[in-house]
C-alpha cells in the first residue's frame, strides 16, 4: 500500500439546512441531518458546493483539545499577570 493510499481523506462534518440534498456520490439528506462531506473542493459535487455556498450546509466545528487556561492570582507585585498552568515559567537567573 502506498503512502498516499494510507492517508485518510480529509472530511467535514456538516449539518444540512437545505430542504433536501441529493448528490451523485450517494448522499441523500434532508434538513437536520448531519453528514460527512469531502473537505477537498475538487472532490465535492456541484450540489455540495452549491449548498455550502448558499448556507444549506453548516460546518460543525470539530472539537479540539485546548489546553486548560487559568489565571494566576494577582498580587500587588504581579498585577494582572495571566499565564498557562503548564507554562514553564522559571524565574530568570540573575
Amino acid at each position, binding site marked *: 500500500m502506498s503512502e498516499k493510499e494510507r492517508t485518510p481523506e480529509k472530511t467535514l462534518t456538516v449539518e444540512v*439546512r*437545505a*430542504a*433536501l*440534498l*441529493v*448528490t*451523485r*456520490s450517494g448522499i441523500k439528506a*434532508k*434538513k437536520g441531518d448531519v453528514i460527512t462531506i469531502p473537505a477537498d473542493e475538487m472532490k465535492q*459535487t*456541484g*450540489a455540495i*458546493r*452549491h*449548498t455550502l*455556498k*448558499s*448556507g*444549506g450546509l453548516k460546518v460543525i466545528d470539530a472539537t479540539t483539545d485546548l489546553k486548560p487556561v487559568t489565571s494566576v492570582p494577582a498580587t500587588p507585585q504581579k498585577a494582572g499577570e495571566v499565564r498557562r498552568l503548564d507554562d514553564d515559567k522559571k524565574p530568570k537567573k540573575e
Partner: protein
Amino acid sequence: MVGAAYKEKDLSASNNPLISPEVVESAIKLQYQKNFIGRTLLGYQPIDVSTVSTVEESDTSGDIDWLSENGALPKLDFTFLKGTKRVRPYGGWFEVTEEQQEDNAEDEIRVMINNVAYAMSYFEDLVIFSDIISANGISSIDATKPWDVSAGANAGDPASDVGRAKRAVKTATKFAQRADTILMSSLTIEYLSAFDYIKSRLYNTQGPDGYIVTGVVQTFMGLIVVEDDAIDPDDDGRALVFKKKDIGVWQERYAIRTKSIPGSTLGKDQVAFKYTAKAKGEPNIKFPKLGCVINDLYT
C-alpha cells in the same frame, strides 16, 4: 421664409423628432419593459421605504385532518425567520454626441437605447436568479450523470433528473405544492435538445408550438421552460426548478426613471445629451423551499 423666424439649427437634421430627448427617454422605457424575464416569474410588491422587514420561511407545521364534531380545526402554519431587506438603486447612462444628433444617426442612438435597456433587465435577472440560488434552504441535487449525449450509454437522463427536482419541491412542502417552471441557460437547452427523444418531440410537434416555429422547448416534464443565461452566467451546468410567482417577490421602490441632461450643462462641448436610466428594486426570496437547483449538468 425671409427673416429671423428660423435659425440654421432649426433646419438641421438634429430636429428629427425621433431623436428628441423625450422620444429617446420613452424608447428606453419601452425597450426595457420588453425584456422582463425574471421579474415576470416573481410576485410584485411595491414598497414606499428602502428598507423593509421581511420573513423567510422555515418549517411548515400542521396538517389538514378529519374534524370531530366538537373538536377544533388543526392549525397550519410555518415558522419563519424575521429580518430586514434593503432595496438598492441601480442604473447606467450613455451619451449622444452632437455629431450623432446632427447626422441624424437614429440607428446608433437606437443601439445605445437597446444596450442600456437590455443591460438593466439582464442585471435584474442576474440578481433575481442569484438570490434564488443562494437562498438559504433551497433544495439542491446533482444530475445523475452529465447531460451529454456524446457519452453514449453513460449520458444522463434529463427526464429523471427533472423529475427528482420536482419531487424535491413536493417533499419539502409536504407534497402540498408543485413546481411549474424550469429555468435553463441556452447552453443547457442545447445539451437537452441533443437527446433523441427531445429531438423527435421537437421536430414532430406541429403548429405554433413547434420547435421549428418558435425555436424553444415549450414544456418539459410538465414544466414551463424559460431560457435565460442569467441562471448560469459562468456555464457551471445548473438549472432551476421552482414554483413561479410564489417563491418570492420583486420589491420595487420606484420603477425605471430616465433623465436627459444637455451636454453644455455638463461642460462637455461635443455632447448633445447624456441619458440616464435608473430604477430601485430587489428580489425578496421568502419561500426557498419552492425551488430546487440541479447541479453538474455538464460534468
